[in-house]
């Protein structure tokens, strides 16, 4: 093609020091890329927006479970009912994990998968094979793994090497959990309108499994690097860390995946048994990548980095702002290059979206509490087992959906309509559960159990 011309090859930086796969200390990389390093360090600053950043003191983010008591009620029987706080900047990820009272219950060594620059340790554990070390880690307790991490000298929060190839600084993903998850997604036939490279791979030979580092476009990598961690997961002792995308990325598809899943011991998959109702329920964690995928931004090729790491002019050059934070603190760069409207108007648009989502979510909170209350009462009155079972099934569906949006960190912004749809279903299932119990109490378990069947 006569129009092709090589862009003038020029190294965009001078390498003062060599960096390699085992250099997890960002300070070392900072010698070569001081601008990015400086902004990276700013993630230690306290940020705060209406729903984002964190409320609470510099020392400790606010307890979500105190702010929204229905969360605590929903998690009754699980460590999240002990301590569950606002998230904050990347600089804190390791510290905040080590501080959480959730560790008063046994936790898996795999917790470090997303809270530290853990790859060298995985390789060490697996005798050079990171995948092996990754599986190994789930058999260790958090405390054992944590000790090894500190010995190994790699006790850093997410670092340059986790997202960048040290040879050429291009983006790459490193996390085994994500790689397995995205490969399962590619192998499925779930629609992926926002991830073109997966469709391309599906249409191809499929001789080798989908490899994000080989097959994804640069633009997709700008979201994949975040998808390494900002995703729903199972991270307990009974099986290796699992990212549940084998049937798709929607709340419904992931629920179907967990419903079909079994532990190695053959038992049906479950996160915990609700302390008051006895329902075998699921826990959703920060499905940012999953929800974003359902939105029109994702469909339009707008990536996490576009909004959370917008380019910023630094003197004579433009660099990616590594101060990963709420875009609402940065609307002119994070939104206005694409949206030609006032900063104020853009903030209001986001706020309207978040307010609607917040209201519907609180409605869901009231509904789930009512269901739990009804179940407790019904048990006290000796409700028929099949009636209770039907109600428990509905509680599982309702909680999953409510938690999916409550645990997601954009207060619905990443996919406004989808988030509202999921909350609408959550409310319906919670109320249906209550109805099943009330009908049951009227001595017709039949009808009730029937009514509950999907």
């Amino acid at each position, binding site marked *: 093609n006569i129009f092709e011309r090589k862009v003038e090859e020029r190294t965009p930086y001078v390498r003062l020091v060599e960096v390699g796969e085992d250099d997890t200390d960002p300070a070392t990389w900072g010698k070569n890329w001081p601008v990015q390093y400086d902004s990276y360090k700013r993630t230690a600053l306290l940020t705060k927006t209406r729903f984002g950043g964190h409320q609470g003191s510099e020392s400790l983010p606010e307890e979500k479970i105190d702010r929204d008591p229905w969360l605590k009620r929903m998690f009754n029987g699980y460590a999240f009912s002990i301590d569950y706080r606002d998230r904050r900047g990347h600089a804190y990820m390791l510290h905040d994990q080590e501080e959480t009272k959730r560790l008063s219950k046994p936790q898996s060594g795999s917790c470090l998968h997303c809270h530290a620059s853990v790859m060298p340790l995985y390789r060490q554990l697996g005798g050079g094979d990171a995948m092996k070390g990754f599986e190994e880690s789930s058999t260790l307790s958090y405390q054992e793994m944590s000790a090894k991490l500190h010995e190994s000298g790699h006790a850093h929060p997410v670092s340059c090497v986790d997202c960048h190839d040290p040879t050429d600084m*291009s983006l790459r993903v490193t996390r085994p959990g994500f790689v397995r998850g995205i490969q399962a997604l590619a192998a499925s036939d779930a629609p992926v309108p926002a991830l073109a490279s997966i469709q391309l791979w599906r249409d191809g030979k499929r001789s080798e499994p989908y490899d994000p580092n080989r097959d994804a476009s640069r633009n997709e990598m700008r979201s994949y690097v975040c998808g390494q961690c900002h995703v729903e997961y199972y991270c307990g002792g009974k099986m290796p860390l699992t990212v549940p995308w084998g049937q798709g990325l929607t709340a419904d598809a992931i629920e179907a995946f967990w419903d079909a899943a079994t532990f190695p011991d053959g038992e049906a998959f479950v996160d915990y048994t609700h302390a008051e109702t006895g329902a075998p329920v699921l826990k959703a964690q920060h499905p940012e990548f999953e929800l974003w995928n359902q939105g029109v931004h994702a469909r339009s090729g707008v990536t996490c980095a576009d909004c959370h790491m917008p*380019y910023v002019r630094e003197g004579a050059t433009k660099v990616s702002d590594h101060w990963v934070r709420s875009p609402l603190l940065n609307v002119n760069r994070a939104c206005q290059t694409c949206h030609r409207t006032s900063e104020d108007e853009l903030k209001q648009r986001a706020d309207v979206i978040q307010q609607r989502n917040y209201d519907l979510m609180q409605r869901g909170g009231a509904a789930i509490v009512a269901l739990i209350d009804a179940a407790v009462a019904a048990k006290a009155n000796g409700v028929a087992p099949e009636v209770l079972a039907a109600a428990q099934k509905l509680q599982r569906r309702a909680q999953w959906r409510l938690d999916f949006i409550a645990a997601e960190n954009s207060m619905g912004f990443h996919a406004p309509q989808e988030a509202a749809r999921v909350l609408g279903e959550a409310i319906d299932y919670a109320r249906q559960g209550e109805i099943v119990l009330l009908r049951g109490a009227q001595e017709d378990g039949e009808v009730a159990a029937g009514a509950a069947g999907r």
Partner: protein
Amino acid sequence: MGTLPLALAVCVGIAAGIGGYTFRYAKGLSYLQTDPKACVNCHIMRPQYDAWQKASHHHVAVCVDCHLPHDFVRKYLAKAENGWRHGEKFTTQRFVEPIVVQAKGRAILQENCLRCHEDLVHAIVGARAGISDDLPCTHCHAGVGHGEKTGIGGPLSNEERRAAR
């Protein structure tokens, strides 16, 4: 502008088969000028012309700065090529509306963004970047030339003129 390239382009253009009619109508020679007015000799370019005047670049860049390649020979080849294609399509009215920059046109655009802004963006035009890259400047700066997307739909097709089912 020198006569050699002009002659060259006209030849290429005519050889490429521009109908005399179009050439008069559209002042096909306009493809050998850089004056934006030349482009609006085709009313079809009017929306982009109007929008360009209100967009951020109108005082620093004219149409050809962004839409035509800038090394000598290819510039005139492209002009002739476009001149022929646009002219042909214009006379036959066979083109999709709203008009949208095609892949080739996008590559030229990207190249021209870099031509003027290389110093600023060299840091972000990283290893996996380049003009064949899927993260072109217009991913974020689509508005630099014309602000919000411009252009209007074409006339009703024959299918539409018949019942619509």
